[in-house]
């Protein structure tokens, strides 16, 4: 191996927050991911897109330790985390906002937030309950309500706020605005933009191509468990016929 390659690798491991390499994953007998590589750099926002059933959620779950891959590796800040328990990956600074939100319906809004709150892996505690409530004022009014009493938009705000209270480096959002009214979805995108500006890196899965490509530094498109495109939004917008084929937009 050339010396220059080594240097570049070292350089990357310093900069890359989470990385999946050669991931193959199965759900029962069906082979969902066929050797996927994905890495997220510090300060970067990735838009992960693809039609339903192409493996987006499976890829995220593999990276989060919720579905250990059949082969391939996962690293968080250069440390091997393949097959690690989900709580270890979370403690390394990776926060998850799942599809369907994952609110605890039997806990109040305040409890949903407090049970997760902790300092980040490096001791950082920028995100406090107060700051989260300033970012999501609607949650402040709903603190005493049960998790199941919230509207879809409020639930999504609660899940994002809860993830931020773990003071993560990386925020992974699956179906960030699915099922939300357009105005509420716009509010969520504004909030994601602010989170991006605060320096947290994210991987965002969403069906709204124009919104995702506006916020993302890099777009990744999955088709049948393989990455068919990686690159900037301009390059993608310039190829409408491929977008139609890959995403149906």
């Amino acid at each position, binding site marked *: 191996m050339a010396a220059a390659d080594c240097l570049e690798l070292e350089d990357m491991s310093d900069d890359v927050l989470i990385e999946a390499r050669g991931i193959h994953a199965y759900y029962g007998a069906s082979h969902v991911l066929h050797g996927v590589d994905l890495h997220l750099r510090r300060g970067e926002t990735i838009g992960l897109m693809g039609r339903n059933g192409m493996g987006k959620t499976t890829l995220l779950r593999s990276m989060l330790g919720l579905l250990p891959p059949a082969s391939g590796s996962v690293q968080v800040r250069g440390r091997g985390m393949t097959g690690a328990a989900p709580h270890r990956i979370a403690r390394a600074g990776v926060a998850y906002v799942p599809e369907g939100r994952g609110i605890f*319906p039997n806990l109040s809004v305040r409890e949903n937030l407090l049970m997760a709150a902790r300092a980040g892996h490096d001791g950082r505690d920028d995100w406090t309950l107060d700051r989260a409530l300033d970012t999501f004022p609607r949650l402040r009014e709903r603190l005493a309500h049960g998790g199941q009493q919230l509207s879809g938009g409020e639930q999504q705000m609660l899940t994002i706020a809860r993830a931020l209270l773990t003071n993560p480096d990386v925020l992974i959002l699956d179906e960030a605005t699915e099922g939300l009214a357009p105005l509420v979805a716009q509010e969520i995108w504004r909030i994601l933009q602010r989170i991006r500006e605060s320096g947290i890196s994210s991987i965002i899965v969403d069906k709204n191509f124009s919104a995702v490509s506006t916020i993302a530094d890099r777009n990744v498109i999955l088709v049948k468990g393989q990455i068919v495109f990686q690159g900037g939004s301009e390059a993608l917008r310039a190829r409408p016929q491929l977008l139609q084929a890959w995403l149906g937009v």
Partner: protein
Amino acid sequence: MDPYIFLIQLLNGVQYGLLLFLVASGLTLIFGIMGVINLAHGSFYMLGAYLAWSLTAQLGNFWLALLAGFVLSVVLGILLEWLFIRHLYRRDHLQQVLLTYGLILIFSELRSIVWGDDVHSVAVPTLLAGSIPLTETLAYPVYRVWLSIVCVVLAAGMYYLIQHTRLGMMVRAGASNREMTQSLGIDIGLLYRLVFAFGVALAAFAGMLAAPVSSVFPGMGNQVLIICFVVVVIGGIGSVKGAMAAALLIGLVDTFGKVVEFEISGFRVLPELAGMSVFVMMAIVLLWRPEGLFARRLR
């Protein structure tokens, strides 16, 4: 009924109910949070009583025996969870029942080997050996009053722990969505181990507290297990509040069922049938509310 006899029975019923609650709350928590049917739960009650008897004899002091027995039962709970129970979380109820039934047999045999099959009694500690006079002939033992107070304090502590601490929030979150709880950085395996050990310790502690008021005998675990399942079913599976209500109800029905003779359309109902009254009540409650008094609503 004489008001003082009524008062004594009322106190006995409440005390029995509170003791049942200590055992049943662990059973309902372990089922509600981890989804494990733990048939061996009665064995912990039996072990507690035998520990109280043998440790009191060894250490010469009931209070030291209580403390040592509590520590031992926590350790036992942690070990059992690590060795056996954690393998049951993702398995079906049949396997859980088979394994925990096997544990009953093992504990029963171990008890027979270590302590024999005799019936024993534990002396009430001298500090609480007196009684409170009610009339010239009737008195109520101080130990039973103290026992009820200890149970109430433990129940209040448990309520506070579950409802108002972060640990309690994590436990409740884990009961509703295991995966999400893990993804928030919480080690659910450790959490489950704590809950199980806590349940074991509560059941064993109940057995230790009960030892001075009832005899210590081989079948006591299975007897309490059956009644505790009735408590859990009446209260609503997984509900600690329900377990409290059902345990008190059963304590009172069982106690008064044994002393009250009454007639139903000409038939005399004998006190010997009191054992049935609890199950009759369960049938009535389940006809009225099939999910129990406090069905836990997770969604």
